């Protein structure tokens, strides 16, 4: 992070490489910190390959993902819930991006998954709520589902909006915000800034 001190105009950096892949090229292993050109290049490349970070993330990620899913699916009976669980599931992707490069992770996740999770979550939440309206109740009056799912309808309805709604929205938006911020502003002509 000391490279951030480099006082360089971002527009002067690699003007011939509008392709985003080049800025995040993970094959660049030139680790010489005194190389001025490399320092200026790092200003637009917030990723540095580090054996320590990669090893740590490789070990920690399965536990974080498991804990996030536990919080999501067990949130009704213990501390946790869709918001916390969804945040941790999203953070797993952020950690992978920090360890293995933002651009490869972005391609691995895919934008369809992120926007699908976020908008799908809203649709599930609205669907469960409007379903009770259609059955003659009020918005999110889960008891109206009792003829279909049995006496625990309220519990299942809450699980549906926590797991299918809130956690999906939160995890999708957190991943999306990270990749959007990392990519930055795009001018009208499609030029990266």
């Amino acid at each position, binding site marked *: 992070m000391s490279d*951030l*001190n480099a*006082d360089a105009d971002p527009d002067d950096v690699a003007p011939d490489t509008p392709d985003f892949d080049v800025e995040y090229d993970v094959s660049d292993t030139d680790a010489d910190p005194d190389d001025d050109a490399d320092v200026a290049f790092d*200003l637009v490349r*917030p990723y540095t390959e580090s054996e320590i970070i990669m090893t740590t993330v490789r070990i920690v990620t399965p536990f974080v993902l498991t804990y996030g899913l536990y*919080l999501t699916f067990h*949130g*009704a*009976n*213990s*501390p*946790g*819930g869709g918001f*916390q669980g969804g*945040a*941790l599931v*999203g*953070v797993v992707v*952020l950690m992978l991006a*920090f360890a293995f490069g933002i651009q490869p992770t*972005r391609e691995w996740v895919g*934008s369809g998954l992120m*926007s699908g999770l*976020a*908008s799908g*979550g*809203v649709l599930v*939440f*609205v669907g469960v*709520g409007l379903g009770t309206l259609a059955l003659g109740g009020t*918005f*999110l009056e*889960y008891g109206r589902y009792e003829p279909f799912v049995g006496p*625990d309808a*309220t*519990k299942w*309805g*809450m699980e549906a*909006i*926590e797991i299918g*709604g*809130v956690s999906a*929205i*939160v995890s*999708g*938006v*957190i*991943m*999306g*915000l*990270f*990749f*959007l*911020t990392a*990519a*930055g*502003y*795009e*001018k*009208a002509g499609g030029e990266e800034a």
Partner: protein
Amino acid sequence: MSAVGFALAAFVLVTAVATALLRDTLAVIIVFAAYSLGMALLYTLLLAPDVGITEAAIGAGVTTILLLVTITKTTRPGAEEIFAGVNWPAATVSAGLGAVLLAISGSIPAENFLGGTTPVTGAAGTPGAGVTGHYLAESYQQTGVQNSVTAVLASYRGFDTFGEAVVVFAAGVAVVLVLHRGDFL
């Protein structure tokens, strides 16, 4: 509150002041993450683990990463001094606002739907009375889930939670639009 609680509160206070006073952006982000971690521990100590988990994941984790990514996109001014100068008029206004909020939160009774009144900060001293006691006593019978916080969020206040979830979604859409991108890249 125990000695650990007071130590955590002091830690949170120190990191909060340091966040406001430090000049270097990277140092501010790191200290702010420490502040969030202290708040998360404090929430857990005050028996609010749901809020603690959220603070640790969002405040200490996601916010820190988003801010770090953001400063790689901007220039970081070189810092000669460690601390920024204090804007005394602004500091006075902030301290006054904090004192007023503290006084209000301790004195104004909040009406609840059972018709009684519960002091905002005195609810813990009156178990079984007021809206908190009602939820703790009835939520398992009425909703079938053991975590009262989830019961309140998803059932009693389900419409509010729907609004919050849509706000999160809208925030994501807003960033897509502001950054002139067609999608979450």
